[in-house]
């Protein structure tokens, strides 16, 4: 724990500390800061929502009750709409494209999107690409028609499910497994590591490898807190954070593949799409872009597509 005179950095997150990509990154960050900034700063990590839930943490940060958090991008909906770019279906074809975009000028500028609200994005942490699963095989977009999908409560995701002719259902994450099992909802969308970690594959007919979206986290701190640090400490802190971000993001592909393989090993079914099948999904869901073009910015979409094509 922290010694007197050290700057205390409380990091609150909602996953475990050693299996989830975010938890692993947070643990690594904690270890490096406590080693390298010993005497200057000290980081305490509160995992598993033990201190704050993701819904609470942004408000708590603006009050100064917590210094660091990494909520999923959809949690910032009520502050800026620009992160909706990452929710738009088939915006990026793989995690490398996401990485390249975030490293680009446009991507880095998005970190500052909430500055005037007192929040500073410090880096994007990946969870991975999203896949669909349901209680029947999903190969054509029409297979999803009429099914009930649990989604995070976001306008983009609701529009995405409506485009498929499916019915979006908001539901607390803790209830999803039970609801999939008993059939209260038919399907859901998530990353490989979540589908494996929550064992959703056990209660679904199969998972379809669509890679239709991403789940990313934004490491965030308050502008006031960052301003309160002396420049040297801040630089050291940010350097460590960026190194951890790069290191862990590079590993995400591997973590994802491991989770994917673990699902197969555990007897789960994974369906791959042919190029034509995937194109059908793209055609059905891409019209959602126009709906949100104004909020997200046509120039941002264009920049993302340029990078996407190059990857």
């Amino acid at each position, binding site marked *: 724990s922290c010694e007197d005179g050290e700057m205390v950095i409380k990091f609150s997150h909602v996953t475990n500390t050693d299996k989830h990509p975010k938890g692993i990154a947070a643990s690594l960050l904690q270890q490096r800061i406590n080693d390298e900034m010993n005497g200057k700063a000290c980081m305490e990590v509160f995992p598993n929502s033990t201190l704050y839930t993701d819904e609470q943490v942004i408000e708590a940060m603006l009050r100064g009750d917590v210094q660091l958090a990494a909520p999923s991008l959809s949690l910032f909906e009520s502050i800026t709409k620009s992160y909706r770019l990452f929710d738009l279906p088939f915006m990026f074809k793989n995690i490398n494209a996401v990485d390249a975009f975030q490293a680009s000028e446009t991507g880095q500028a998005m970190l500052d999107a909430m500055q005037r609200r007192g929040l500073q994005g410090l880096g994007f942490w990946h969870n991975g690409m999203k896949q669909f699963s349901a*209680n029947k095989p999903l190969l054509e977009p029409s297979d999803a028609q009429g099914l009930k999908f649990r989604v995070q409560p976001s306008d983009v995701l609701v529009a995405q499910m409506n485009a498929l002719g499916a019915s979006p259902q908001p539901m607390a994450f803790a209830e999803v497994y039970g609801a999939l*099992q008993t059939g*209260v909802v038919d399907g859901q969308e998530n990353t490989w590591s979540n589908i494996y970690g929550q064992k959703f594959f056990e209660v679904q007919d199969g998972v379809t490898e669509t890679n239709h979206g991403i789940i990313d986290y934004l490491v965030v701190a308050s502008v006031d807190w960052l301003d309160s640090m002396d420049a040297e400490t801040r630089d050291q802190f940010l350097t460590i954070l960026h190194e951890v971000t790069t290191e862990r993001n590079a590993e995400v592909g591997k973590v994802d593949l491991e989770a994917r393989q673990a699902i197969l090993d555990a007897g789960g079914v994974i369906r791959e799409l042919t190029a034509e099948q995937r194109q059908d999904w793209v055609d059905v869901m891409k019209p959602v872009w126009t709906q949100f073009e104004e909020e997200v910015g046509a120039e941002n979409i264009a920049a993302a597509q340029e990078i996407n094509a190059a990857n």
Partner: protein
Amino acid sequence: MEVVLLFVLIVGLLLIGVPIAVALGFSSIFFQLAFSETSLASVAQSLYLAMAGHYTLLAIPFFVLASSFMSTGGVAKRIIRFAIACVGHLQGGLAIAGVLACMMFAALSGSSPATVVAIGSIVIAAMRQVGYTKDFAAGVICNAGTLGILIPPSIVMVVYASATDVSVGRMFLAGVFPGLLAGVMLMVTIYVIARIKNMPKGEWLGWGEVSASFRDAVWGLLLIVIIMGGIYGHPWIRFDEGLSLIYWRGGAFTPTEAAAVAAVYAFFVASFIYRDMGPLAATEEGGLPLPLYRKPLAIFTAFFHKDTQATLFEGGKLTITLMFIIANALLLKHVLTDEQIPQHIATAMLSAGFGAVMFLVIVNVILLIGGQFMEPSGLIVIVAPLVFPIAIQLGIDPIHLGIIMVVNMEIGMITPPVGLNLFVTSGVAGMSMMRVVKAALPFLAVLFVFLIMITYIPIISTFLPNSIMGPEIITN
């Protein structure tokens, strides 16, 4: 250590008559202000999010409401009639019927005191009429009423599930066998005592009465089917041609939604079928209720009728007092987490070399002592996060741990000096507390044996959920 100070402060405040919620909240706030930087605004936010951020706790108001509609709506007396028709002719039959009625009402209601009030008020009077001592009657009901939180649905299970992120549906399934087992153990004990003491037995009223009373009670009992079938799935008829007619249809709602459906269903049964309340109820004592065609407007007026409003209000009031305690208990949980107390305790326990057995004994003792001061839901909110991580490390099944905690809560409710069911029974039976304690003692012994069985035979709790929902997943 400061934490000891914190708990001393809480107990001190409780003993001088500070409301439980304020004792927990004030101590936690005081502690936060004194030992950390956390702001009062954060306290306010936590109180707000105790409700807004805990979706599963929503089941509490709904189950409380369903229970209120069934108590005022005449479900209890119909269940009792059916229970008497089934087992009333045995030696000690009325007492056994009382337990059976408690079990059936427990399957409709989420709380123990509600079960005692609904069943106890009628059965205790009936037992005395046929020659049982008041003490025996009170002892039976006081104990059987605790099944209210063990047989699903259960408010305490909802709170445990919410505090530890296990599935409510799983917890409900896990309570089924233990609930039946505890009920049967109580009934057997009564039968043995009745044979020894030659207690009265009723008359066998014939299969006619069994079926008549069942038809009368079936609207209430149907709720069990609706809750369980709605959550876990049910057979359904298919209308598309070419396929087999009957198929298994998946669940219709989550456990939280099931509670709301239960409340609406109970309202309909009470207002339109039994008509013991609402616009169609008989206007004079002993009169007959009106049929709906005589007063068709009742379809609308029932929603705004003063009986409906009064029941809604009663349900709301109970929800408020329970949730105020839970919300403040969450403040305390926040303090304990902030100070990383669970980790310290876990480290201490594990390094002391405690195994699962010793650990469970400690949990039982903590809960039995804590149960003297605390309302069960509030106690679970505080204790569950403390012991849960340790239990997981020791390889104890989270569902099994939950059932152990619920059974401890049951026992806490009927042990002196403070026990919710003791108070309620003493009120319902018009007896002094100490007399109820003595009356409850022989059956309390049965529940103790039951607690030991539940603690050391995990399969009683885990068999049903594991065979229906697959083995428990631990992701954290």
